[in-house]
């Protein structure tokens, strides 16, 4: 084998790297583990719960592994009692190490199931409040937020009141995008012709970064938005002010948003839901691109086909 100093060198190198990674890890903002809302909280609790189990498994395997490798290494003075080349197995041991993982899987499956059903409901902490409905639509490569009740539309930012449940209705105009605000709660896909619902709630005022985490092409990296949590009064005054001062969203402006590009923040006092619902109409954006002569290679769509589909509304609602 190798000489001793090399062993020590390797061990030192490994330990130093491990320490550096750990320190840097603690310095980085592990935002997923520092949630600011009940949805992220449920997920963080589940993650931490599973991490404890996993660390326990790692410790058991590592201790056994280290013991075996050191104790049973081949060297000059091997005790023949410690060498049993014909040992075929042990039914007792094998039953034990089948049963324990079964128990662990059950122990993980139960809280996971509970969390899954909880996440489909509005957050329990604000059960009395009526959720605010916001449509979040991904279009290459921006996020469009529509407040149907308030008749407001924003692009690449979304203002919400704190301590208030929000029901996001998520869809997309073209590619499959994933709506994700890491510090508030886990993600869900927006897909053309379908709507996915996601309850979120922010407990502390502040700005939280959100983005599309699913690859949708060239501008995906920059498809980000700010989720801004305001206290109830500021939110109400923002709504009022926007309704009074922001321009109406006309169809031409909206059509421009359907072309693949990154854009800045925008605010309007009417929503695109007046002329298209991407949750039903999957082909709107393709049609617009064709109209503006943006190349859609790969598939040949004809205007007749488009008309047929939009008349039939062929895509089912999710």
């Amino acid at each position, binding site marked *: 084998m190798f000489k001793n100093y090399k062993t020590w060198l390797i061990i030192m190198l490994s330990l130093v790297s491990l320490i550096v990674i750990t320190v840097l890890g603690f310095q980085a903002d592990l935002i997923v583990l520092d949630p600011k809302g009940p949805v992220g909280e449920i997920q963080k609790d589940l993650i931490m719960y599973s991490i404890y189990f996993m660390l326990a498994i790692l410790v058991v395997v590592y201790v056994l592994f280290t013991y075996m490798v050191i104790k049973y290494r081949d060297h000059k003075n091997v005790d023949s009692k410690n*060498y*049993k080349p014909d040992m075929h197995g042990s039914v007792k041991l094998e039953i034990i190490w089948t049963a324990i993982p079964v128990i662990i899987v059950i122990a993980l499956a139960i809280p996971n199931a509970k969390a899954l059903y909880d996440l489909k409901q509005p957050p329990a902490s604000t059960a009395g409040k009526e959720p605010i409905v916001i449509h979040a639509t991904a279009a290459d490569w921006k996020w469009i937020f529509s407040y149907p009740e308030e008749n407001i539309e924003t692009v690449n930012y979304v203002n919400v009141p704190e301590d208030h449940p929000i029901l996001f209705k998520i869809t997309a105009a073209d590619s499959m995008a994933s709506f994700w605000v890491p510090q508030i709660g886990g993600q869900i896909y927006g897909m053309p012709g379908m709507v996915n619902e996601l309850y979120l709630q922010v407990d502390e005022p502040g700005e939280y970064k959100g983005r599309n985490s699913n690859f949708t092409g060239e501008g995906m990296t920059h498809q980000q938005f700010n989720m801004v949590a305001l206290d109830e009064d500021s939110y109400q005054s923002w709504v009022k002010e926007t309704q009074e001062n922001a321009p109406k969203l006309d169809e031409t402006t909206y059509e421009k948003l359907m072309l693949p590009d990154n854009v800045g923040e925008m605010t309007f006092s009417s929503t695109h839901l007046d002329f298209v619902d991407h949750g039903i109409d999957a082909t709107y954006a393709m049609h617009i691109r064709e109209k503006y002569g943006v190349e859609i290679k790969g598939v040949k769509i004809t205007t007749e086909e488009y008309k047929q589909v939009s008349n039939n509304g062929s895509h089912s609602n999710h």
Partner: protein
Amino acid sequence: MVEFIKDNLILNDPMIVGANISILLTVIVLVFVLTYFKKWKWLWTEWITTVDHKRIGIMYIISALLMLFRGGVDALLMRAQLTVPNASFLSSQHYNEIFTTHGTIMILFMAMPFLLGLMNVVVPLQIGARDVAFPYLNNLSFWSFFFGAILFNISFVFGGSPDAGWTNYAPLAIEGSPGPGINYYLLGLQVSGIGTLLTGINFIVTIIKMRAPGMTLLRMPMFSWTTLITSFIIVFAFPILTVTLAMMTFDRLFGTHFFTLTAGGNPMLWANFFWLWGHPEVYIVVLPAFGIFSEVIATFSRKTLFGHKSMIISLVVISGLSFLVWVHHFYTMGGSANVNNIFSITTMAIAIPTGIKIFNWLGTLYKARIQFTAAMMWALAFIPTFVIGGVTGVMLGMAAADFQYHNTYFLIAHFHYTLIAGVVFACFAGFVYWYPKMFGHKMNEPIGKWAFWFFTIGFNVCFLPQFLLGFAGMPRRVYTYLPEDGWTALNVVSTIGAVGMGIGFVIIVYNVYYSLRHSKMETTGDSWNGRTLEWATATAVPPHYNFPVTPVVKDVDAFWQMKQEGTANKKDIEYEPIHMPNNTGTPFVMSIFFFIAGFGLVFEIWWMAILGIAGSFGCMIFRSLRSHVYDKGYYVSVEEIKRLEQPFHKEA
């Protein structure tokens, strides 16, 4: 014609032009060397047309190493781009192409062929057979894989690489990706998929029908077992891929609407079909790896494998479950709580049989005499590293938590911990372990250990930080990030690790050269004091017929048992002439036609596509008409057997 080449040859990117030139130079040097040393005929008769499973295996492995180089360069380019925020080393489009080719190449053109290569070299020997059941088909398998890989690889210099990720999700891959890139992906995978499917069929028949007398299924070595189960998964999973790829090809070329946004297509269908193949695919690469570790660990523990039967049971359970978990790749598509819950449970359930395997390996180490050879070190490093991949897999399997892991670097770190610690370590372990069986000499051990330490430490330094990057909210497939995201330090560390892995790979390649020059030739077939039949041949590199007399098996560790009884190296054997199959050139020609058809379809050059398809059918007809008349094989005479078995006699 000139227009067409001018339009598609990529000359505006200095890196790709560099690649162009180096490819051209390599080809020129190769042609020159082959001509100068008059090796063309040798190449044709000894390698290209060979039906010898060992040579086909070696060709698979050489191709896999080339692909590992290509995929590795892709990986280093990505790490270079991500080291610091706001880097402009690669453009977004270039980065997208690189991560797409990295993923596709590493899974389909590196991991699979590497393992198929080792299977080819080892499995017929391990079960005491003379060759695989269908040697002709085996040659076709290799060449269709090879030309599929070439077709995929030329995309980056001619026409542009695919850029929709290795998962190639619709509608991005249809409406969102103009240019021939995605066509390359579809056709390259289609052509190489033919080879994989044929290999699956070939190995099922070989293992079921051609085992040596006495080798019951329960006495079959673990690597052959994993090969058998893997072949079944291939036969069930690859047709799904074939059909799915064909459907998208139709969408892109002929205006059908299976996965399109328009006219009633359903993009989600692609995700379902893709992962219906894609998840079993993960087990297609990881199960043979488990087999390799079982062989290596048993050999260098100087002990029989612990829990042989429970290893087999867990193998079968894993293969069944592998078809029942595909939805866990898209919990976030909005499945109901019930659906996500069921798939969470099936996913986590895979940890149970896998756990059994881990503890059985640990059981094998118990009361053993562990020898730290380079092969064994790869196998030993697998256990603690793969367990990290395993437990994080369980965490990802919990759907409610997965909403936070999905599409993040946590996922990236997880699957690299399973695929590198599981598959790549196994490829290296198997490569070093069976190297004397392929080339007649061992790889240099000290250099091999240097490579091991660089690669394994580099690997952990590269991917451990990525778990934390996931918790810090860094999504996968982004080409850059901002300083205020706070991901810089961990990314720098990760890149340092990647460089370490690169150095490890270079040392391995250097070791091939060094060992060729300096290693002593093996004088027996049993280089490592082995336990299974592949070590029972008289010479280090077995002759093309493998065994002069078919061995008789009495135990799981057949060769070990022979050595214990002293029946291993019997002297006075009555030889009989051995019937062997003829070499064949048709599969090579047929695969060239596949390539022509594929290329024609990629660029929608219809005459070329039709020519290619007609040509490959022509080869098939040619073979069918001829095989009964001419392809009857030949006999190896007793004199020749005696001559080839000589080293054994000398020694005895």
